[in-house]
């Protein structure tokens, strides 16, 4: 039985207990991440509430198509991650590796699009502190754009960590350092994190690019 490959760590009495503890720990960790991004979302919503006009003009400066492309990239990466988890559970080592690498590639594609978008934003004078002066006079517009940079930046950092994690994991699965299906829980936990980062973007995209968009 492949289950025997699972290493039992010190405080646990049996494998089921360890597995449940790992799963619970991961979910609690995701809960803390949700609270941190929640504070940021709260700030963005407050800005929209106090400065509807400025925030709307700022929203219109953002490219909803590039953002939408990024949304699609991340949703696709969530699909490949799900496939990786299924493959790992079935012990399909090379498919697991391939799907994980596909997720990482889609994540990198997201970051490239995001980088290009930042470059375009820079050209429009949207970046705080550098480049041309800010193009909109209305109060709250610049504030909203700065909020956009902080929140997308923090999300990009999380995604980058995810990419590194998944690439490392793909290598470990390939080299049988993380044997599947014996330790498929590692793939599962990495997948949880990946989906979660996707979920942050699922909210970030409409709050930044879509809400209150004018003509």
């Amino acid at each position, binding site marked *: 039985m492949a289950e025997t490959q699972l290493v039992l760590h010190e405080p646990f009495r049996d494998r089921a207990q360890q597995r449940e503890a790992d799963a619970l720990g991961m*979910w609690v960790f*995701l809960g803390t991440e949700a609270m941190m991004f929640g504070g940021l979302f709260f700030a963005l919503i407050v800005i929209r509430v*106090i400065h509807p006009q400025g925030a709307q003009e700022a929203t219109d400066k953002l490219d909803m198509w590039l953002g939408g492309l990024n949304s*699609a990239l991340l949703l696709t990466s*969530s699909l490949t991650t799900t496939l990786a988890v299924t*493959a790992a559970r079935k012990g*399909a080592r090379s498919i697991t590796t391939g799907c994980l690498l596909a997720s990482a590639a889609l994540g990198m594609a997201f970051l490239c699009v995001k980088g290009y978008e930042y470059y375009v934003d820079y050209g429009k004078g949207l970046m705080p502190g550098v480049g041309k002066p800010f193009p909109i006079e209305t109060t709250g517009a610049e504030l909203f754009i700065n909020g956009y940079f902080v929140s997308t930046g923090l999300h990009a950092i999380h995604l980058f960590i995810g990419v590194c994690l998944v690439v490392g994991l793909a290598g470990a699965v390939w080299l049988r350092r993380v044997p599947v299906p014996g330790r498929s829980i590692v793939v599962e936990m990495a997948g949880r994190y990946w*989906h979660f980062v996707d979920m942050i973007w699922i909210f970030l995209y*409409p709050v930044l690019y879509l809400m209150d968009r004018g003509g």
Partner: protein
Amino acid sequence: MAKVIRTGDLIVFAVLIGLLALNMAQARWLDLGVVSRVVTIALAAGQALVLLWYFLELRSATLLIRLVAAAGFFWLAVLFGLGLNDWLTR
């Protein structure tokens, strides 16, 4: 490869992309007035719930894990509810 691709996952993926397209379309071409913000968030929340239920496997998770996920949303609701309560009544 074929054995890891399940139809269910593909349907879930299609629903996620569909909700995204819907949200983009209503933001770009529909003027929903006062309910527009609510619709935008509702569509995103729909995506998030689908993601949580299927890809994050809350569907087959223990009650405890579902509670953890629900607790996250509850506490965020406290932050947003009591916090916005200030700005909306100033």
